[in-house]
């Protein structure tokens, strides 16, 4: 097992030599590392240098009890054939993080634009964060855990005069 995961361990070794962080090999071709927000951009630059040139996706997980947003950057290396996930946490009250647009260009730009709209995360340095999917939306970012979509739909669309709708809303 340890023998066959040599490639994956090498990535963690390379990263921990420079950034003093530990990572874990989840399985073949899956490597996860967690880093402080301040070092995120430096690590992303380093990862690109290691061959992780394809930004597969960026995701946000909302942890309201903890007061944080967790960002995950999923990177694929065409040469090494490894998926590296970089995780970092942001303060939920002030969700600002450096943009990775200088590293992964237009690809990163569009992912950040989506997450800004759905979670309200600020990507500093991304110049175009105009809304992508939602038209004329002025409510809170809808993918946050504390956005109660059931209540929102009830308030917006429940026609109380229509008896047949009662089964859905009451």
């Amino acid at each position: 097992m340890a023998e066959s995961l040599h490639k994956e361990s090498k990535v963690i070794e390379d990263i921990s030599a420079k950034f003093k962080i530990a990572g874990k090999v989840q399985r073949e071709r899956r490597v996860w590392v967690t880093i402080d927000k301040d070092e995120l951009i430096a690590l992303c630059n380093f990862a690109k240098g290691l061959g992780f040139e394809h930004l597969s996706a960026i995701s946000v997980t909302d942890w309201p009890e903890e007061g944080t947003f967790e960002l995950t950057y999923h990177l694929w290396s065409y040469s090494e054939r490894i998926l590296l996930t970089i995780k970092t946490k942001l303060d939920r009250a002030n969700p600002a993080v450096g943009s990775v647009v200088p590293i992964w260009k237009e690809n990163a730009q569009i992912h950040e634009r989506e997450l800004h709209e759905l979670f309200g995360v600020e990507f500093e340095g991304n110049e175009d964060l105009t809304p992508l999917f939602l038209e004329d939306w002025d409510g809170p970012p809808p993918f946050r855990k504390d956005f109660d979509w059931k209540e929102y739909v009830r308030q917006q669309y429940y026609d109380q005069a229509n008896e047949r709708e009662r089964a859905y809303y009451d």
Partner: protein
Amino acid sequence: MTKQMNEKELITIEHIEQIIPGDTDYNFYFGPAHSGSGNFGVKLRIDGEKVTSARADPGYLHRGFEKLMEYRIPMQNAVLSDRVCVLEALNWNLVHAEAVDELTGVEIPQRARYIRVLMAEMSRLQSHLIWYGVMSLALGFDTGFKMAFGYRDYILDIFELITGGRVYPAGYICPGGVRRDLPDGSEDKIKRVLDQTEEMMQKMKDFDNIVFSRRTKGVGTLRTEDAIRLGATGPVLRACGVETDVRKDDPYEIYDELDFDIPVREEGDAYARCLIRGREMEESIKIIKQVLDRIPQGNIREPAKITPPSRVKIPEGEVYVRNELARGEGCAYMRSVGGGEPYRVKLRGPDFLHMIPVLEHLLKGSQIADIPAIYWSLNICPADMDR
């Protein structure tokens, strides 16, 4: 009186210049209800015949699946995952099921793995036939459109036989395996449909010179470094000379046991993308034949009985699953905190990148007449972009 009237009726160059003052710049809105565009628009700025800038306008199909999945247990989400992309529902079923399976750590029965791959490849075939149909329509070749959709229907008949649904399989590929075993005699029926599909592919080759090559050669050329930078995946990237396929590079299910090739071309233009898809259909047929030859007997789901909703638990953890869809890389990030519903699901569709950065890049500088060829050579589906 007559003199005045005549002066008014006669439209002179001066009149036109008053209406269009001095230049040939104008805005042009492609979509969002154009018959060839799907529910998606592109705002174009045109100078004469040339596109000077393009800006994608997505959102018409945004249904918020990622959020909806946080309120449902995996079996319900399997049904929901059909809808992520209308044109390849079974492939998205598989992405979702794999994410849950990796979290639960269930050993999927071998027969179920074979059925999953069989259905995923059939789905790829019918998706490529849709692409061929709409691409033909975009190029003004109605015959190709009608034939492709006709032949696709044979595959849909097989889907109906196996899953019960023609387009939406209602979560046929579900966490733990598949919902039902193959009905008796379905292998023979599938083989017959493969023969019919091969017949269609021969016709596609015969039509090639009439329409496709003339309208697509040298159009919408994407360079390799641009393709990687813009996040292109799948056939679009392979048409730019990058030999990559998730089925080979990051194998899932039983793909590492199967023998198939990755078609690659160097040109990077719309024609190369068309040829790649034609070749991919051949490879899919090769895979399906191998699967049918080797499919073992056994269970089709683990656990065989579906767990009652109140007892469903997804173990705590997080996974990132990658699959090769007909359009490119389809991924799911799933996070669980040990409840019945996933805590967070992120779906990454190939068209999110193909329809926004790649399309904008290719349209800029192109001619109006080439827009449909470029648009459809990317084989795009607004549904998996908006999610």
